[in-house]
């Protein structure tokens, strides 16, 4: 009974303190800034529809900001718009637009500085240079936001979601278009990137630098310079993502550089110029992925070692596997290769003849670019066949000794 009374009292105290402040043209507060000024920790600020041009808005209290019917906060192509410096801030329902491009400062639509537990949900950010920028923060949730940029060149554009020195972040269900990088992580650990769609970015859809123990699952990366770039990182789990149509001269589905002990599982790579490009990629498990109609499905340079490539499906890629080395330090086993021409007499579903996925022609093309025009020529097929019978240029040990007869679906 005593507890109950206490509880009642306690709740009362909260309800007294947690007020709701409304902002609109005819409200008590006509600017967001003024409402923040007057608010206390734990208050909610309800911003009604309208256009707010208030320069840089600093949120330095534990507030919940809710946009009602999509209020527009405009930076007039100049300032950073929201700067969050307090913990547990929640922002929801805003349309944030027009942050000016700057070559000196990383201005953002929402900038979170040294905060914990910030939640940014269901906002629209349009032309905000950097969209959501988080630095030295942790345990934040970035969800259901739509971030549309207008990036044309790498140098004059910002990232849609930019994390720097962060921990335990969740980035979910965002839709990101036309930035430099869709999602950029530098020194970010133990974070999850889930079910985002990032398209048409000038550089990368998702970019890891020096970030460890992270997971990204169920994302779609379409038509970026590279779908995902993972560099100088380890223990990254990459699962169930779709890498689609990342086309261009140096375009990759997944670009790996100095990455260790990670897993690439159940992803789909379709029509990328290069699906996976690996430079010093080490101890990776590449399993159960599907590669379909890519230019190069796997391009692992000689510096990539101790990787296991198993149970993947390779369908109609121009080149399934390419390498620049005459040696092979990786294991290929139990994959399905649509090109495989062997037989299975004992009917165990595994081809009786090993498969060599590297074609001589991929070497020729590396030496003389123009020769790509002879792709699929019967003469080239003859060369490839001869090389398959007696490997001279291609690594003799790069062999899948258990090629599957049927796709692993």
């Amino acid at each position, binding site marked *: 009974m005593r507890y109950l009374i206490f509880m009642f009292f306690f709740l009362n105290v909260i309800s007294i303190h947690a007020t709701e402040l409304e902002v609109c043209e005819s409200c008590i507060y006509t600017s967001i800034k003024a409402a923040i000024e007057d608010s206390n920790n734990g208050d909610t600020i309800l911003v009604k529809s309208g256009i707010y041009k208030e320069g840089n808005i600093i949120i330095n209290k534990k507030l919940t900001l809710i946009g009602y019917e999509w209020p527009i906060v405009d930076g007039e192509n100049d300032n950073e718009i929201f700067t969050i410096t307090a913990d547990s801030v929640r922002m929801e329902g805003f349309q944030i637009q027009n942050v000016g491009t700057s070559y000196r400062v990383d201005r953002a639509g929402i900038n979170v500085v040294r905060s914990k537990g910030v939640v940014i949900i269901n906002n629209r950010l349009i032309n905000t240079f950097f969209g959501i920028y988080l630095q030295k923060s942790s345990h934040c949730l970035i969800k259901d936001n739509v971030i549309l940029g207008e990036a044309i060149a790498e140098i004059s554009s910002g990232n849609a979601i930019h994390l720097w020195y962060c921990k335990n972040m969740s980035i979910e269900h965002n839709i990101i278009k036309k930035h430099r990088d869709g999602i950029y992580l530098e020194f970010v650990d133990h974070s999850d990137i889930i079910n985002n769609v990032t398209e048409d970015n000038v550089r990368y859809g998702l970019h890891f630098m020096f970030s460890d123990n992270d997971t990204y699952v169920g994302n779609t990366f379409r038509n970026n310079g590279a779908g995902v770039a993972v560099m100088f990182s380890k223990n990254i789990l990459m699962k169930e993502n779709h890498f689609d*149509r990342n086309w261009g001269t140096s375009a990759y589905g997944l670009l790996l550089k100095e990455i260790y002990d990670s897993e690439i599982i159940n992803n789909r790579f379709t029509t990328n110029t290069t699906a996976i490009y690996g430079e010093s990629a080490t101890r990776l498990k590449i399993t159960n992925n599907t590669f379909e*109609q890519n230019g190069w499905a796997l391009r692992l340079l000689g510096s990539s070692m101790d990787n296991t490539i198993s149970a993947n499906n390779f369908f109609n890629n121009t080149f399934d596997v390419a390498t620049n080395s005459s040696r092979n330090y990786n294991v290929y086993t139990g994959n399905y290769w649509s090109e495989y021409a062997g037989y299975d007499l004992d009917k165990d579903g595994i081809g009786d003849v090993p498969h060599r996925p590297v074609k001589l022609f991929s070497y*020729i093309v590396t030496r*003389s670019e123009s*020769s790509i025009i*002879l792709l699929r020529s019967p003469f080239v097929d003859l060369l490839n066949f001869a090389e398959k019978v007696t490997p001279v240029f291609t690594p003799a040990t790069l062999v899948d000794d258990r090629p599957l007869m049927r796709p692993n679906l």
Partner: protein
Amino acid sequence: MIKIFKYSFFDLIRSRWSLIYFLFFAVTAGSLLYLSNDVGRAVVSLMNIIIILCPLIATMFGVMYYYNSREFIELLLAQPIRRESILLGQYFGLTISLTLSFVLGLGIPFLFYGILGSIALTNFVVLLLAGSLLTFTFVALAFVIAVKNENKIKGFSLAIFVWLFLAVLYDGLFLLSLFIFEDYPLDKFSLIMTTLNPIDLSRILIMLQLDVSALLGYTGAVFNKFFGTSIGFIVSLSCGLFWVIIPVLSMVRLAKRKDF
């Protein structure tokens, strides 16, 4: 011409060879579809077969048909009809019956496997287009060779050589020259080389469907423009048509001057 076409078409369509040719493609397509269980993949496997086989069959049938119907051509020549009509009629009769065997042979199994609703439909249509173009070109080339050479063995050998050259040797020499001149920019050179070979042109048509991802990985501006836009397709297709028109015209020209 239409009359001659009509009868030689009826003759050929009833011939055992048309049926064999049709069955060959039907069985190949059917078994590829059965094995891969995916129209897209079957289309890719068929491409290599078509690039080699359509020209070969067209060449062989072209030469054979011309030599076999020489006496009949003489009978026709004695009729009040233009020379070129006779040859053109026979040319179209053979070409169209071969094309029909080819298109139906591939088309029927693919229809059963639901090509119409598949995303591979464009690829498949381009495949049929490329095969048909090759048939038209190589029957014409075979006729030109046969009209020029009364000696059957000589004509046959020459026709097979032309096929072998265009199908395999040409690309070998092409590749060799790319390596010899590798220090020079070769984009334009290689595109021109391609247009000079009808088999390469058909190959490019198919490649533009199947390998865009890889083709876009190249830096050359000329290549990028050719592969990255519809220019590549339009140029290849029109050059391919030239490869039909020019041999047909030279066949007509030869026929006008020939003593039968």
